[in-house]
């Protein structure tokens, strides 16, 4: 009798296959080999291969004993926070405006497209542009000098604050459109009858935003925050190109991935592998922390 029933679950597996294959080939295997490689001394000296020699945890020891990794981790987090806070505020505001039925913004579709546009520019092209704009003899300095704000060119890329600021600004500009669209999707998913009920009860739009929109938006906010955090940890292209790979001034804008990239010069798989594993663990811990802090744990009810 059993054989007669139409079984569909094999299709489930078949449709899962492409993902599993891609995941194993492009994610799982590289991850396992990275961990494996991190226990070896393995690099190129000129055209000569050194190793691979098994060295146990030596790579990790030298990574942490120099202490530099903490500086780069701190840089990365500072850059992320500098970019994320303005970005989420801006996106919440824009999202609230765009999804507010009472405001009836004209040309909302146009603006939604426009704010997303910066994300379409290649990060490298974007930072090349900023590098030129903000160079010592660049147009921004000329303008500032002509309107008389400063007398001598301000060296944007030689000061910690301005360099970090520029990187955060660029990232913010590139990603706030994306965040706005995600938040807007979340806001539009909220039952409009709740807004109407609030309106009937005489709530102001500020009250509506803080009492209704924000609490109901929390799952999306958590998602946005985690993805942004992981993206932030992998921050590379903008500071790499803006500072020509040096992380100047004094490596204050050198992120963890830029540090990883430094080991590619000698194809140092051991050190790079160790760093990647550390990065993997940090990412995992941070994601867990955020998950807990924002109270998204379903078990609490």
């Amino acid at each position, binding site marked *: 009798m059993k054989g007669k029933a139409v079984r569909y679950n094999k299709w489930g597996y078949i449709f899962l296959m492409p993902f599993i294959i891609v995941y194993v080939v492009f994610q799982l295997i590289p991850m396992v080999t990275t961990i494996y490689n991190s226990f070896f001394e393995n*690099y*190129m*000296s*000129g*055209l*000569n*291969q*050194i190793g691979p020699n098994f060295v146990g945890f030596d790579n990790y020891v030298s990574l942490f004993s*120099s202490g*530099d990794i903490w500086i780069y981790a701190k840089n990365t987090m500072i850059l992320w926070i500098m970019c994320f806070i303005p970005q989420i505020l801006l996106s919440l505001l824009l999202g609230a405006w765009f999804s507010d039925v009472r405001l009836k913004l004209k040309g909302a579709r146009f603006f939604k497209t426009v704010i997303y546009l910066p994300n379409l520019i290649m990060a490298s092209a974007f930072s090349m542009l900023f590098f*030129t704009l903000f*160079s*010592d*003899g*660049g147009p921004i300095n000329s303008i500032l000098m002509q309107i008389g704000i400063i007398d001598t060119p301000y*060296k944007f890329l*030689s*000061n*910690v604050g301005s360099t970090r600021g520029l990187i955060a600004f660029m990232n913010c500009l590139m990603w706030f459109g994306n965040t706005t669209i995600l938040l807007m999707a979340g806001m539009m998913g909220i039952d409009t009858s709740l807004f109407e009920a609030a309106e009937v009860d005489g709530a102001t739009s500020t009250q509506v935003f803080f009492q209704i929109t924000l609490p109901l938006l929390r799952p999306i906010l958590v998602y946005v925050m985690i993805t942004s955090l992981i993206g932030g940890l992998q921050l590379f292209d903008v500071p790499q190109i803006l500072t*020509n*790979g*040096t992380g*100047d*001034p*004094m*490596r204050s804008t050198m992120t963890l991935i830029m540090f990883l990239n*430094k*080991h*590619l*010069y*000698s*194809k*140092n798989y051991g*050190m790079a592998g160790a760093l990647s594993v550390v990065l993997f663990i940090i990412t995992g811990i941070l994601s867990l922390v955020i998950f807990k802090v924002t109270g998204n744990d379903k078990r609490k009810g």
Partner: protein
Amino acid sequence: MKKKIVSALLCAAMTATMIAGCGNNAGASTNAGTGNAGTTDAGTADADTADAAGTETADAGSDTTAAAGDEGKVLNIYCWNEEFKSRITDHYPGYTKVDATSGTIGDVTVKWNITPNDDNAYQNNLDATLLKQADAAADDKIDLFLVEADYALKYVDTDYAMPVADLGITDADLANQYQYTKDIVTDSNGVLKGVSWQGCPGVLFYNREAAKEVLGSDDPATVQEAVKDWDTFNETAKTLKDAGYSIVSSVNDTYRVYSNNVTSKWVVDGKINIDENIMNWVNDSKELVDAGETGTHDLWSDDWSAGFYPEGKVFAYFGPAWLVNFSMAADTEGSIGNAGGWGATEGPQGFFWGGTWICAAAGTDNAGLVKDIMLQMTTNEDIMKEIVVKDDDFVNNKNVMETMAEDTKYSSKILGGQNPLAMYCAGVESLDLSNLSPYDQGCNEEFQKAMKNYFQGNATLDEALELFYTAVLEKYPELSR
């Protein structure tokens, strides 16, 4: 119905691309052979694509040319810019340009594989390809590659570069070449593995207008008097600053002048060593920067090259012949070079900068052609003369250079009619290259980058030196401090 057709088409297209992608990969990896399982993943992937491309062109080449010989049909040349290509195009007899990346010599297709130097991309690409040289198909093997002095030893001191004697080039052929150009590409066993068509003794190129305005005359002798040693040089910097000029565009301009006059190598017995003269550069430069007499721009940046134009207000650049001829915007309307506004004088100390060496890759299937290119481009006196006249290059041939130096008819347009060759000839004899090491490129780059922080006041000298050590050890994990 329509929807179904469209979706079916889309599916088909997607599958097709997937399969096509896989097919390519499979093809390329069989091509690359199996002997290099231990080498780099990223490198292999890159080179695979290059290989695939190479095979395609190779096929196209053999279709059009029917003639057969015992030499390969494809000559693969690896280099980092257009310079050598334009030299071959202009001066090598029988070279016909096909398009931007290929040409022909007789029935041989010349394939130019140009990878820019940025971020070490040229060497990464060359390394990956050289490491698979033994397994590559004959038409994909590198036949000829170019190297610079900074890292020449990295290649010359391996078996990947072929001794020129094995090509049939004798010492007598190269008798007129300057000794220093041979020293750089001689390996640790004393075997010569490359040749160069240019010599790169450096001089000081000064802005004639600025010299007239500030020093009263643009005569090389007067200017030389103002820059004859570093103390006078730094004094002149003050005078120039009062007149609104920077003596040089950036502290990095003077770097090579100091670093070529060192008395020890960057690496001694596996330890990083900072020479005294390099520290002199740091101290002198810090003073210049603090006094606002020069900038800290990276070489080749827009801020650095602003001085190629009169508005840039830069008094001088240090450089060899190729800098003023090839890199200082001489073709651009409104630049100083275009108006013939540069003058040349010896400067405080002799130095050299760059230079390009031609190496034959071991395993080449075009040995005969490679030999001919080397001989024609570096020893044929007629071609050498052509290069001097047409490209203002300083060629690697004593006879030619000494005759040209005395020739009153020869003069450089960019240098306002001056004949600088005698100056170069004097400079090239004094070059001492006994303190080169395979680590020069990385050390020089990282030292300048690290010191930039010190000059700009973002770090103390010790912090900046610390940063230099860190950066070098990242690049060369085998060294210690």
